[in-house]
């Protein structure tokens, strides 16, 4: 696939290129490959949990534990972050009107660390669960899988930090002199916020990984209670990184929706300022709430209260984004092409995920939901419902620009219905499962809990529908990139105007950015 150049280039030249569009393509394609690999694992898990009883599909619990670990790690670190990086790599230099990323070679190096880290994670196939709590990961998780996990995550973490440095320098230092930071498009703002959060949060986890490794080797006792350490210390270090990290996963998808919704509403963005404010506020407040993952570890009342306040304080920022989108759509001439459908579906699911999250943040209610399928449903509504929807919307949007061909709107409709229905059916049902008390990460559940069986079966059918939607998506991408109708490069979506870069604002008091 050739981008922006006149002649087709050999595949190996694209693979080792440092140009931002090529690196973007590499990130996106490997990210989508890992999406499908982890998706297969998810289908295996859900199908196995259709019936209670051991050996339904997975022969033993050790294998099950390894499958859900690798599913989680892959989706988060080998799909969500890389695809966000990929779209960011492609668009951010264009948005700041620069010729490439600030450090093109570093960009390519950061990309190539992804397949290496991914190979370590997949070959080891550890059973630590993606959070790899101490002391299990130190005194019980067998090697070499758990050690490969540590090295793989280390490499992926460094890759994250390097690409974050790249984005920060590109956006702040390399932007066009006539472009003020306030008017940089919101997707670039989301990448900037996310990159700043990464370089503050990620080194903590890198440190925790090294400490975990030396603990496993028996030479230190940071988190090993049998060597004088404290497992709760690991939880603090882990969640200090990974609570901001969940916002890091989320914000690029919101930024992508900011690209799509004003365009497809054929109306300027409601408020650039509140979008910027909401991103920055979330980026800062996101660091104040990590303890809400640890309410049950024996924290005292005051500490729990502080973290609850920190959690609730971040919610208005997300609300501002939702309001921004709705106000932009209000009164617009909406063109409901596939990107718009997925973006709007994503907003609706984002809202419901956030609403469920408010229950988790309330201290006493968290004791009902923590460690159950409620959390699984809640987090997947964010991950699948918002992030995957946002990414899919963006991929459909740039599809004609990258390939020169148009996808099939009819099949995109099938994909949309399957994905929306499937997401709602699996993850809303899992909220109910959580209220029934079903814990997470369990290989099997007692057969005499009939409500669990019924809800699991409903959730599994939903998962199959969701999976079918993704199969349609994959087939679309492959088939129509080779055989699709040539796209009208001036206006692939038939918006009937100059709605692509740059967009003129009708109302001079509203800054739309570029």
């Amino acid at each position, binding site marked *: *696939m*050739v*981008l*922006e150049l*006149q*002649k*087709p280039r050999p*595949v190996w030249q694209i693979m080792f290129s440092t140009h931002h569009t090529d690196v973007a393509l590499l990130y996106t*394609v*490997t990210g989508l*490959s890992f999406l499908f*690999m982890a998706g297969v694992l998810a289908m295996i898990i859900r199908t196995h949990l259709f019936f209670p009883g*051991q050996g339904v599909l997975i022969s*033993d619990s*050790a294998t099950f534990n*390894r499958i859900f670990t690798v599913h989680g790690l892959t989706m988060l670190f080998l799909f969500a972050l890389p695809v966000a990086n990929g779209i960011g790599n492609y*668009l951010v230099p*264009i948005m700041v009107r620069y010729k490439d990323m600030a450090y093109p070679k570093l960009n390519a190096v950061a990309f190539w660390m992804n*397949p290496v880290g991914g*190979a370590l994670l*997949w*070959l*080891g*196939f*550890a*059973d630590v669960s993606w959070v790899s709590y101490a002391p299990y990961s*130190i*005194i*019980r*998780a*067998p*090697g*070499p*899988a*758990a*050690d*490969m996990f540590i090295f793989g995550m280390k490499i992926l973490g460094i890759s994250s930090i390097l690409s974050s440095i790249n984005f920060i320098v590109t956006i702040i230092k390399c932007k066009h002199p006539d472009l003020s930071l306030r008017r940089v498009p919101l997707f670039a703002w989301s990448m900037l916020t996310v990159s700043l959060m990464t370089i503050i949060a990620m080194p903590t986890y890198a440190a925790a990984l090294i400490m975990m490794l030396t*603990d*496993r*080797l*028996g030479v230190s006792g940071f988190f*090993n209670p*049998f*060597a004088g350490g404290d497992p709760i210390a690991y939880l603090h270090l882990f969640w200090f990184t990974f609570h901001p990290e969940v916002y890091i996963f989320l914000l690029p998808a919101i930024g992508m929706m900011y690209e799509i919704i004003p365009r497809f509403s054929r109306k300027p963005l409601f408020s650039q300022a509140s979008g910027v404010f909401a991103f920055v506020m979330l980026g800062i407040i996101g660091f104040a709430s990590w303890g809400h993952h640890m309410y049950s570890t024996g924290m005292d009342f005051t500490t729990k209260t502080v973290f609850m306040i920190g959690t609730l304080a971040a919610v208005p920022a997300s609300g501002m984004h939702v309001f921004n989108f709705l106000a932009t759509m209000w009164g617009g001439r909406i063109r409901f092409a596939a990107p718009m459908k997925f973006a709007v579906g994503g907003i609706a699911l984002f809202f419901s995920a956030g609403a469920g999250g408010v229950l988790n943040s309330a201290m006493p209610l968290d004791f009902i939901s923590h460690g159950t399928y409620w959390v699984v449903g809640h987090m997947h509504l964010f991950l699948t419902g918002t992030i995957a929807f946002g990414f899919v919307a963006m991929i459909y949007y*740039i599809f004609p*620009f*990258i*390939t*020169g*061909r148009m996808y099939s709107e009819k099949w995109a409709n099938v994909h949309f219905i399957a994905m929306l229905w499937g997401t709602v059916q699996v993850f809303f049902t899992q909220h109910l499962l959580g209220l029934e008390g079903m814990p997470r990460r369990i290989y099997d559940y007692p057969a005499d809990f009939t409500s669990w069986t019924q809800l699991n079966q409903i959730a599994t059918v939903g998962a199959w529908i969701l999976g079918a939607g993704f199969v349609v998506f994959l087939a679309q991408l*492959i088939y129509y*990139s*080779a*055989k699709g109708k*040539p796209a009208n*490069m*001036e206006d692939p979506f038939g918006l009937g105007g100059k709605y*692509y*870069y740059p967009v003129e604002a009708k109302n001079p008091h509203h800054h739309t950015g570029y």
Partner: protein
Amino acid sequence: MSHSEHPDTIYRTSPRRLGKLLAIILGVMVAGGIIFFTHYDFWNSYLPTAGKLQEQQMEQAASQAAGGPSSTQGTFSGKETHVALKFVESPDFKNYGFNAPVGSSGANPEIHANVGDKIDFDVTNGGKSFHAFAVTASTSGPGPAIDGTTIGTADSPMKPGESGSVSFIPASAGEYYYICAVPGHRELGMEGKIEVSGPGGAHPAAVNMAGTGGTVAPNGNKIAFTLSFVISPDFSKYGFNAPIGSPGANPDIKVHSGDTVTIHLSNPSKSFHAFGVVTDPANPSSIVWDSAFKTADSPMKPGESGDVTFVAGTPGLYHYICTVPGHADLGMNGNFIVEK
């Protein structure tokens, strides 16, 4: 995002290029899969160092709590018996057991043997859960297991349908247990008793009441025994008449209350020893009835011999030991049974 304004539209993608891309991706996945599955057992194979250290800590704590039972097997000198055992669980998973859930008939059969007998266990996992087999001397908890008697471990257990065999030769008399070594399963019912009596047949549990050491008047009977202090060539096993674990070691002495007992003692070993009948073999100063011959401070030298005569007192189970500290633990400890 500018678009090309070249007059001939060059399509950015074509089936050939797409095919190459998919070939690379799928090729990498297949290669990775081959590497993964051909070494499937390797990736999750060993416990980390910290885990091994913690297991050692737990085992030491457990064996200290159990009073340091003998963790090694004895030498085969008796008869061989086969025992077939099956791990089973009750349908509601609340009761476990060998051959039948605990509480049902046929569960956890009791095994009787003598020191030096070999018990061959053929163990199958007939349940739905994971189990591991071990023979232990401790009365609670999942271990420590006696060397060589384990099939599977808690971390690498026997899956349903798996089976294995081990042999157990008890080194000393007492109560042993065959258990499931997965934590919790013993408490749920997977525990059976192995009663091991000393060579010579006297069932130690038959006289299981420890003697109090009270004196009685002599009844006129006179009885004599000959004992020699013996040490194995590698100095690891001590005993009376033979090193512990060998045939003829530490013979049971049975007398009646009131008998006048004479012990002819000789020390053909290379070390110093002393003799006494005690109530508690772990306490060399609990000597009863003036039965001491020499003491730890003034012991029998190699080659020395001598006699001691005393009147056996109130009925019960006593022990005759070498009263030099540590020698009783090394094996110089036999049953001295006083019957009515």
